């Protein structure tokens, strides 16, 4: 619980030739559910999945600023759930210590120093 073990469970990201950051995930071949992870089956319907890239653009669904000590992270830190366009809802870190404005455009900008998905938000 305290020290991370095994593989990193967080979404894998990739930089395209155009310089955009995208999440390397899966899309269900049956129900089109987008998934931010390289899982073997669709979590919604158990059908087969295929590789898919999501992002870099999305919309802030909600946000918060964590102001308590959490191992591996230094408070305060700003978190947002971002609905990637035609993609999954992903948890991302946002620079600064203000809540990201809900409903505003956001885009992936790589990972933070701690290895977390990072977004910038159009305030």
């Amino acid at each position, binding site marked *: 619980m*305290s020290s991370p073990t095994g593989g990193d*469970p967080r979404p894998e990201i990739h930089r395209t030739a155009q310089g955009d950051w995208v999440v390397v995930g899966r899309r269900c071949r049956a129900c089109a559910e*987008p998934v931010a992870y390289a899982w073997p089956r669709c979590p919604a319907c158990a059908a087969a999945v295929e590789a898919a890239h999501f992002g870099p653009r999305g919309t802030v*669904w909600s946000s918060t600023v*964590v102001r308590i000590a959490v191992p591996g992270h230094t408070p305060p830190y700003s978190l947002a759930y971002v609905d990637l366009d035609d993609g*999954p809802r992903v*948890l991302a870190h946002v620079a600064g210590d203000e809540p990201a404005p*809900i409903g505003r455009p956001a885009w992936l900008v790589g990972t933070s120093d701690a290895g*977390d998905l990072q977004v910038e938000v159009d305030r």
Partner: protein
Amino acid sequence: MSASVAVAGVGTSHFGRQPERDLVALAWDAVREAFDDAGVEAVDAVWVGTVFAPAGVAQRVLRAMGITGVPIITVENACASGTTAFVEAHEAVRTGRYGRVLALGLEQMSTAFSGAITPETTDPEGRAGLAMPAMYAMSAARYLHSGAATAEQLAAVSVKNHAHAVHNPRAQYSGRYTVVEVLASRMIADPLTLLQCCPTSDGAAAAVLTAATGGAGEVVVRSAALRSGAPWNHRSPHVWGHDVVADTARDALTAAGLDAATDVDVVEVHDAFTIGEIVTTEALGLVPPGDGGKAAAGGVTALGGAHPVNPSGGLLSRGHPLGATGLAQLAEISWQLRGRCGARQVDGARLGLVETMGGGVSVLDGNSCVVTVLEAR
């Protein structure tokens, strides 16, 4: 053959930070009281719910009170572990697998965590620092953004449940707070302040289940439903946890032969954070969609209101020792239906409902949810 199942006895420890008391002592408080209440000395099987206790804890605790040589099964379903133990114990009696079963929940949080539960690093969002207060804060922020609740209405849940707990001698915290005081307490995860978050708690709670005898005043289980969450994402119009609570509630109400949760006299729900109670009262159908905050602020869900919620003080005030919580909720409802709650008694309560919700696995709409309906005959 299926039998009508009775909650023959319930018991709990005190709830609070009790690092000096081990799990044997906490569990014995709960089991002794439940056995005395049921008038039994032994059971045919035990289901134990716990989340963070070490491997073997169930047998280690139960041997100290002479419960050995019978089947003992440990279950983990996050915050719904205790009620999951109850659901399984109920099914074992209902189907005739065992005649008399103990459901026990226990947890000692104070020796494991100094504050919020450390997020699980093998979970993607846990690894990214999404502590439980932050998870619920996402829902609260969304409610504020959409106008479904105000900050003052969120705080009203804390004011109400702390006031209820004034009448519960086993509660960890109680007090007459104001909305202003709740909002002025230290920010934990915007917009949730300290007094809107459940405390770090140690405790145990237990219930003895048997076949119903048909005696007057007997508390019977009308239904017990359990679901684990489906994926939760942009496809749901609701915040996290709403849909699994609504689906599980529908299962439980249908099985109980009830039209709606509003038919129930008293309710204990999973208010680990203030927004949790607001979302849950809406998901249960106790109040119309979008009215959860208004109901808390307007006294609808207070003692004396049309639909009293968390007369015990809830998780916010009674405390939240994870594995024990569901059975503590069941103990409260059982006492309510037997008219034993003193100044926090809901007058004439005959039908009661318990809802527990466990989370922490990202992508899913909750690890598990339990809804059960009890009735005093």
